[in-house]
């Protein structure tokens, strides 16, 4: 074989090896967390491991639409993940445990299913004092509430109750103004508890609106509004009417699930709850709503938020959700 032919062969083979080997090498040595719409697989991988105190550097990319990334129960700003681009995030955990990362962009009807976990090993860098059993148990559990039982209010007001009107009518009843009472009772229960007081029914509802507002702060409402817009409005609608952009898709899924399930109830349960429905909302206590949010709705599209929202965030959300029933003083920022 001529030397020129041999050299040509070496060059060609080297070129082919580089063309195949180099991209494969870099591809395998660049671990990416790929985000896809949940219908196409969600996060991949959906389990990540980390150690307490060691920075965890994640490279995230989207294979389809814009997604967002945030880790539940952590104080972090969510970041956008753009199609075909790589976003880098560095996380440091100070406590061991299983953390949930989730999509913060409304990427599709099953957006809420788009979750993964970060398993953090090691010892807490700053051990916290142990909580008592009572402190660790959510309120709805300590109250022994059956959050799946029907809780409709038998009586509802004819017009939207007003905290402004209620402020002038408030009776001097200390139990009504305690936060324990507010979180443990539904507005309808409060309506009953006020039955001995000489007020008309509409006036009683106005007093309840005032009581509900007096147990929350403007900051809490504002935070609840922000969380609601980011996480709930996609299904429940911006105005709480259960008509978010994905509501129709969820209802369709409910209809199709009717092919294998019995009764209309299952179908209806797929549609997002209407927070403007007074029957449903005035019969629900904040504790019951805490249970619904924390655990999620069994057999419905309502996801579990307990691994994402802190307890404080859940109370803020609940405070905001009641604003669909009550007319509060001042605009919510």
């Amino acid at each position, binding site marked *: 074989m*001529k030397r020129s032919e041999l050299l040509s062969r070496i060059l*060609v083979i080297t070129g082919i090896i580089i063309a195949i080997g180099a991209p494969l090498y870099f591809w395998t040595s660049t671990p990416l967390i790929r985000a896809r719409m949940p219908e196409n697989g969600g996060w991949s991988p959906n389990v990540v491991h980390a150690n307490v105190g060691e920075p965890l550097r994640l490279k995230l990319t989207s294979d389809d639409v814009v997604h967002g990334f945030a880790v539940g129960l952590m104080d972090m700003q969510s970041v956008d993940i753009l*199609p075909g681009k790589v976003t880098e995030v560095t996380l440091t955990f100070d406590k061991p445990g299983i953390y949930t990362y989730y999509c913060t962009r409304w990427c599709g009807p099953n957006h809420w299913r788009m979750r993964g976990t970060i398993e953090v090993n090691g010892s807490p860098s700053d051990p916290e004092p142990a909580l008592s059993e009572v402190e660790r148990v959510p309120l709805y559990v300590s109250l022994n509430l059956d959050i799946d039982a029907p809780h409709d209010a038998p009586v509802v007001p004819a017009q939207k109750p007003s905290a402004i009107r209620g402020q002038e009518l408030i009776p001097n009843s200390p139990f009504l103004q305690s936060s324990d009472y507010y979180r443990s009772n539904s507005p309808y229960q409060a309506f009953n508890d006020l039955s001995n007081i000489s007020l008309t029914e509409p006036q009683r509802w106005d007093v309840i609106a005032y009581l509900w507002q007096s147990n929350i702060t403007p900051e809490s409402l504002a935070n609840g509004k922000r969380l609601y817009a980011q996480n709930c409005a996609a299904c429940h609608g911006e105005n709480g009417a259960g008509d978010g952009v994905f509501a129709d898709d969820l209802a369709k899924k409910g209809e199709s699930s009717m092919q294998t399930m019995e009764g209309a109830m299952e179908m209806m349960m797929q549609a997002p709850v209407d927070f403007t429905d007074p029957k449903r909302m005035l019969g629900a206590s904040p504790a019951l709503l805490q249970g619904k949010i924390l655990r999620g709705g069994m057999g419905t599209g309502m996801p579990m938020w307990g691994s994402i929202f802190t307890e404080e965030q859940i109370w803020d959300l609940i405070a905001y959700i009641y604003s669909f029933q009550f007319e509060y003083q001042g605009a919510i920022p």
Partner: protein
Amino acid sequence: MAKIELTRSSFIKNALKSRYPQLAVFIVMLVGYIFAILAGFIGTPVGSHNFSIVFVWIAWWAILILVAVPFFGRGWCAVCPIPLPGEWLQRGAILTPPDKRPKWLNLRVPKMFRNIWLQNISFLLLALFSSVLLTTPNITGIVLAAMLFAAIGLSAIFERRAFCRYLCPVGGFIGLYSQVAPIELRIKDKQVCVKCKDKPCYRIPAGGNGSSAGYGCPWDVFPGGLTKNTYCGLCLECIRTCPHDNIAVNLRPFSADLAKPSTRMDEAFKAFIMLGSAMIYAGVLLGPWGVFKDAAYNVGASAWFIYTGMFLSIIFGILPGLFTLGLLGTKSNTTLKHRFASLSTALIPLGLMFWVAFSLSFVLINASYILAALSDPLGLGWNLFGTANTAWQPMLTSILAPAQTLALVGGLIWSARTAQKAASEVKVSSIPVIVYCFATTSIMLWLLL
């Protein structure tokens, strides 16, 4: 304008005759091609950020249709990497012919396939899946790999470059449109070829290839009989093998080959396929009708079958049907089939300009993706040249509409002139063809502007 023989320049002649410059380009192209296949499979599935989509369907296509074909004819074929692995294996060598040929089948391609109907079909197959192909990296990877392996397979069975000549979906229309290019490879003196006994530029003798200097024409063309560019792949092999230095590369007037119209139906229908495809793409891919886009994208759905039916009806029914109707009124001694094939030559410059106008739209709109993909070809977060974060930005939008208008109106005038020449060859009126070209150009203007 007279022809200018470029190979009179010893620099050009030596550069073309030597195998090394071409081999250097081949290696770069082959590496890029294999990288494009891999990028399709392992890179980001987001087409606008994947090397395979951005460099094949935006960068390569822009260079091919806006520069290479109009100005260099089959210039792309001269450096195309697809046939190389098969050809090298078939020859048993990369450079000059070895002493012994490898034991490949080297069969002659059956006569029934020695036309461009298979190329028409392969182009249509890609065209019907184009919405998915042009946007989905792994589909592009599959198609690129399939073409590479098809070329290897055909080289193992048949002699020469059977894939390029008879199957390549791109080679068919490049050949058709290369007739308008101002460059050609031709013999200098016919008598020299007549007297040449061995004809190593074409022959593949039983005991070896072409001659010790090179191979018999890989494109199965005898250079001595070349009258048009259609089937000359500019592989430059005949320049190397000709013992009489009788091969020249010439600069010539545009569309010189169209003066002698073809009478082949496969080429005539290629002209209709290309004309119709450009019009359909302009409507479906660039038009405002979402229903058409959805139908084209949802391969396998009933809407896609309707789209396919309409696509094929326009190309094989409506466009040639109306063209034939126009010819029915013309008086001539030649058969209708002969007139149909000859006068369809007028659609060659028109079709090319349709493609230029259509391609300008999406190339200028999407060209900024090239910079981003250059720095991060696989979507792995690299920034090789500092351009990975280049934002998408349509380019030269102010000149888009004037440039498209110029291309289409220029194409119409060019076609009208070609129609007159073709009509005089078959001695019929050119008016029906000119009216046809005017009508299709008007539709294209409406679709694009």
